C-alpha cells in the first residue's frame, strides 16, 4: 500500500491487524471477519522496531511465546537469527543494536510465530537508504522462502515497486484507493533493476496518479 502521509494507509493496516476498530464495512481473512487481534494468523511489524528495551534480543523474541504461554521453538528461532545475520547477538540489548539490526530482530520476532499474513507498517522508514536496500533484499528472500502474504505500507514509490506484486495507491482527503498497479518485474529482483528505464517509467506513472488525487477512484470503506 502506497500513498502520501494522511491517506489512511497506516489506519487501514491497523484495522487489518484487528488493533483498530472500523466505522463501517468489514475485513475478511480466509472468509472470517477480523474483529480483534488474531495472533496465530496475523503478524504485525511496526514503524521502528518496537523492541522492549528491558529485554535482550532473545528475550524479545521469546516475548510473543510468553504472551501465548507457548514454548519457544528454539530451532526455528536459531535458523531465523542465522538468516537475518543476528546470530551471536542473542544477549545484546536493543540499545546496543543498530536500527537495521533492531528491525531485523522485530522481523524475526514476528516470523518466529509463523503467521500466514505479515502486516508491515513502514518498517524501514526510519532507516538510511543503504540499510533500507539491504532490508528490502532480506525481506524478498524471506518472502520467497516462506511464501507468506505480506501487506507492506510505505510512502516510498520505488520501494513499493521493488518489493510488490501489486501496488495499491491511496490518496488523501478523503482516504481512497486510487488505483491498483500490477508489477511485472521479474523475480528474483536486484537493486540494479531500480535503475532501468522501465522501472523509472513505472515510478513516474504512479507518481502522476498520486498527484492527480486518482480522479474518482475507488472509495475505501
Amino acid at each position: 500500500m502506497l500513498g502520501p502521509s494522511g491517506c489512511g494507509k497506516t489506519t487501514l493496516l491497523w484495522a487489518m491487524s484487528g488493533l483498530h476498530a472500523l466505522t463501517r464495512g468489514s475485513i475478511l481473512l480466509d472468509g472470517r471477519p477480523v474483529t480483534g487481534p488474531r495472533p496465530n494468523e496475523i503478524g504485525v511489524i511496526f514503524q521502528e522496531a518496537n523492541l522492549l528495551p528491558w529485554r535482550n534480543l532473545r528475550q524479545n523474541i521469546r516475548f510473543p511465546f510468553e504472551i501465548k504461554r507457548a514454548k519457544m521453538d528454539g530451532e526455528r528461532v536459531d535458523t531465523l537469527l542465522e538468516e537475518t545475520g543476528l546470530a551471536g547477538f542473542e544477549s545484546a540489548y536493543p540499545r546496543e543494536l543498530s536500527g537495521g539490526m533492531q528491525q531485523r530482530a522485530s522481523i524475526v520476532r514476528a516470523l518466529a510465530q509463523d503467521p500466514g499474513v505479515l502486516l508491515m507498517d513502514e518498517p524501514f522508514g526510519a532507516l538510511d537508504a543503504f540499510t533500507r536496500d539491504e532490508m528490502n533484499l532480506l525481506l524478498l528472500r524471506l518472502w520467497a522462502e516462506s511464501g507468506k502474504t505480506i501487506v507492506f505500507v510505505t510512502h516510498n514509490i520505488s520501494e513499493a515497486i521493488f518489493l510488490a506484486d501489486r501496488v495499491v495507491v491511496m490518496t488523501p482527503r478523503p482516504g481512497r484507493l486510487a488505483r491498483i498497479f500490477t508489477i511485472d518485474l521479474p523475480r528474483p529482483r536486484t537493486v540494479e533493476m531500480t535503475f532501468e528505464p522501465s522501472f523509472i517509467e513505472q515510478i513516474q506513472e504512479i507518481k502522476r496518479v498520486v498527484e492527480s488525487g486518482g480522479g474518482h477512484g475507488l472509495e475505501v470503506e
Partner: protein
Amino acid sequence: MSEVPRELRDEVPTFEEAPRKGDQGPIDWTGITSFHPAKTMLEMVAIVGLFLAVFFGLELILRVTDTPTYVFPKPIDVVQTLFSDFGTIYAHHLWVTMQEFLIGLAIGSSIGLLLAALITQKPFAEKVIAPYVLVMVTTPMLAFVPFLRLKLGFGLWPIVIAVALASGPMVMINAATGFRRTDLAKIALARSYGASTLQIFTKIRFPLAMPMIIVGFMVGSIFGLLTAVGGEMVAASEEGGLGERLVYFSSLARMPEFGATILIIAALGVSIYVIFYFVGKRWASWEA
C-alpha cells in the same frame, strides 16, 4: 474471538523513542539514582585520602586545642566505642530501628505501589487523590508519633505506622509517574499477540514503570529512615532505638557514644542508597 483492544481506541501511536523529560512527573527524582561513583584507582585513592585527612586532622586539632570530650568527641574514641561496645550497647538499638524501618517500609510501599497501579487506571480518581497525596508527602509524618504513642501504647507500632505513612506516599507518587508512562506502540505489540489486560500490566506497564518505582523506593526509604530515627527521638518505644540513644547519650554528654550512634545511622542511610543503586543497575539500567 476477542474485541479490538480498548486502550488503543482510534489512536495509532506515534513511534517516538525515549520519553520526554517532562514525563518524569512533577519532581524529577531521577538525579538521585544517577550519581557517578568513582571508577579509577586515582579517584578511589583520593576518596580514602580525604577521609583519612579529615579523620586524623580532626583528632589532631582536638588534641592540640585540648577540647574536652563533652564539647566534641575525638574520632578515635568514637571508633573505639563503636567497635568495643557494638554488641553490648548498639546492636540491640540498631535492630529495633531496623525493625521499625523495614516493617514500616514494607507496609507503606506495598500500599503505595498498589494504589499507584490502581489510580493510574482511572484519571478521575488520580485527579481527586492527587492533592491528598501531596499533603501526605509534604507533611512530616513524625509529627504524628506522639499522638500514635498515646493511642497505641509503647510498642514498635506507632513508629512503624509513621514510617509507612512517610514512605508510602513517596513510593506512590513516583510509581504513579512510572505507570502513567504508557507506550501505546508497545501495548499494541502485546495486543497483536493476543495479550490480556493483566499480561499487558505485568509484561509492559510494570517493567516500563520499574525505573520510577526504584526511585520511589529509594526516596521513600530515606524518608522512612528519617521518620524512624526522628520518631524515636520524640517518643521512643520501651525497646529504645538509635534515635532514643541519641537523646539519651547527649543528655548525659557521652559524646563518643553519641558520635558512634550517628555513624551507625549514617551507615544505614548509605546502605539504603547502595542497595537501591545496585537494584537500579540490575533492573532499570536499560533506560540509562
